[in-house]
């Protein structure tokens, strides 16, 4: 019995090996996970609607042990459609929604033998947030310090992986929502190149910025997942028809001659000194391993946050127009004596169904697109986006990758930033530009603060440069022990 409990602590690739050797069955893995969730999730709250579900104790679909993932369970963020399993974006307005179809990534995972965990992971409502405090179901707690946030918006997925309540997880990243929680929780998180992974079935926040990506315990698991979820999809008109390489082959333990650019704008005031030290030590480590680094400039970095909060909110206001009480989810009760009309229903449903941050962003987005303001805000932001992308294009002409801290600080306390939206937005400063430029970006653990909170190293590459990310991150990871450390829960 105690042998089973430990199975949840392994990586997917280790478990696949054990299944292959017939040392364990995938039911053993599921039992271990269920046990761990029962023990730990009342404290971490990585999962939502847990008590509603009896599915936790039931067998998942019988895994085909001939398929690559051998029935390994994977946990899914609440904004990715899973047929027949509630998908609510952690919002009241989508309560009870059971999608009639699977997202393309879910279909691909099933085809490769993954067992889709029926209970979803917690997130900021509609992915609006950097702390998972905006969830309708309340916040997730960082497994490394339960009084701290896990980051957001994929905080549930990151915390679940960190706490060994999940073997593998999927999240989504629009402005850092995979990478920042990965950094705060001490796990690996990747935002693929825009168009690399299909968005079909991802409930949209900002259509030109969103990507689904993996949250895993190590780089090998991340590469393995990317092999499965990547690829052109005719159901997503923004997916790109570029061949998917075997990302496992990129796991080469060698960075000799790799040229790393260190952007000076990411190392100014506002960066916590402990984070700065750990990141600089990581860069020095890579230099010891044979890479070269040099300072570069991404001159328009200071404009990234304002550009993002115009474009992302504008796109969100459009994407969230569909939540109106008509086809799915919550519909406000008509409380007026006289019969109210359709527009009243929309207004009341959206007023009651959306949380505070959702309303704030939708209204801001509507404003920047409205007549008289469109040019001054939205159009201007699109132009500055061009400049931001151009900054990266120039650097990648000479450098193989760019390295920065993932976040200016380690995990902050629950409640610390939630009352000040602008303060919260500014914490996205290092992750946001990658979404604006459409480039791939990965966060890998690079140490702990004195208080024991994880810190993440962010690596950026040119479009479709995931292999470079994996190579650099793998080399770093295999020459450090961060990925072997576990929180004491």
């Amino acid at each position, binding site marked *: 019995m105690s042998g089973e409990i430990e199975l949840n602590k392994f990586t997917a690739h280790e478990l696949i090996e054990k299944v292959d050797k017939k040392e364990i069955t995938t039911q053993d893995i599921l039992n271990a996970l269920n046990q761990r969730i029962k023990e730990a999730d009342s404290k971490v709250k990585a999962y939502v609607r847990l008590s509603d579900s009896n599915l936790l104790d039931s067998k998942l679909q019988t895994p085909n042990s001939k398929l690559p993932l051998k029935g390994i369970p994977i946990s899914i963020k609440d904004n990715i459609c899973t047929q027949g399993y509630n998908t609510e974006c952690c919002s009241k307005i989508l309560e009870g929604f059971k999608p009639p179809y699977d997202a393309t990534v879910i279909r691909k995972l099933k085809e490769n033998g993954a067992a889709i965990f029926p209970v979803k992971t917690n997130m900021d409502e509609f992915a609006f947030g950097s702390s998972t405090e905006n969830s309708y179901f309340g916040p997730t707690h960082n497994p490394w310090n339960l009084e701290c946030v896990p980051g957001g918006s994929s905080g549930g997925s990151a915390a679940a992986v960190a706490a060994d309540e999940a073997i593998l997880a999927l999240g989504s990243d629009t402005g850092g929502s995979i990478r920042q929680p990965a950094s705060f929780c001490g796990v690996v998180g990747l935002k693929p190149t825009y168009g690399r992974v299909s968005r079909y079935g991802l409930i949209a926040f900002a259509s030109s910025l969103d990507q689904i990506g993996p949250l895993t315990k190590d780089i090998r698991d991340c590469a393995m997942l990317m092999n499965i979820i990547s690829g052109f999809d005719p159901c997503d008109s923004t997916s790109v028809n570029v061949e998917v390489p075997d990302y496992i082959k990129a796991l080469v333990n060698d960075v000799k001659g790799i040229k790393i650019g260190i952007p000076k704008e990411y190392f100014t005031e506002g960066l916590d000194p402990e984070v700065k030290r750990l990141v600089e030590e990581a860069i020095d480590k890579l230099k010891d391993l044979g890479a070269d680094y040099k300072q570069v400039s991404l001159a328009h970095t200071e404009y990234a946050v304002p550009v993002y909060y115009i474009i992302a909110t504008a796109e969100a*206001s459009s994407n969230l127009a569909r939540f109106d009480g008509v086809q799915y989810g919550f519909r406000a009760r008509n409380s007026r004596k006289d019969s109210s009309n359709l527009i009243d229903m929309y207004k009341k449903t959206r007023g009651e169904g959306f949380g505070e941050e959702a309303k704030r962003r939708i209204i801001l987005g509507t404003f920047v697109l409205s007549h008289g303001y469109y040019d001054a805000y939205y159009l201007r932001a699109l132009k500055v986006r061009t400049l931001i992308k151009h900054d990266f294009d120039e650097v990648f002409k000479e450098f193989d990758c760019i390295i920065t801290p993932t976040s200016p600080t380690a995990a902050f306390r629950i409640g610390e930033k939630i009352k000040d939206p602008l303060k919260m937005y500014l914490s996205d400063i290092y992750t946001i530009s990658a979404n604006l430029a459409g480039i791939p970006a990965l966060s890998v653990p690079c140490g702990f603060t004195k208080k024991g909170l994880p810190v993440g190293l962010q690596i950026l590459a040119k479009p479709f440069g995931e292999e470079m990310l994996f190579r650099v991150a793998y080399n770093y990871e295999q020459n450090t022990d961060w990925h072997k450390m576990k929180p004491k829960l």
Partner: protein
Amino acid sequence: MAINKETLKYVAGLARIELQPKELEKLSGQLQDILEFIDKLKEIDTASINPTSHILPINNVLREDKSADSLSADQALENAPRREDNFFGVPKVIE
């Protein structure tokens, strides 16, 4: 750029969101701060720059005009808060 309460009410109306008086009050202050911050973008001369509305160089993605499987009416109506026959039931639209 000022966003007074009247503008805020108007924009909320466009977004079909009913805000309570306390929300209006709070939001007005917060949006004011955010817009002031966003005004930073005025520092840049963007006159000769092309906007990036889409990060990938792909245009006019089309498909074959062939019909394929789609959701059945039952599937599409599965989550309906109110269903009437094969329709989503809604309050009347006042002309």
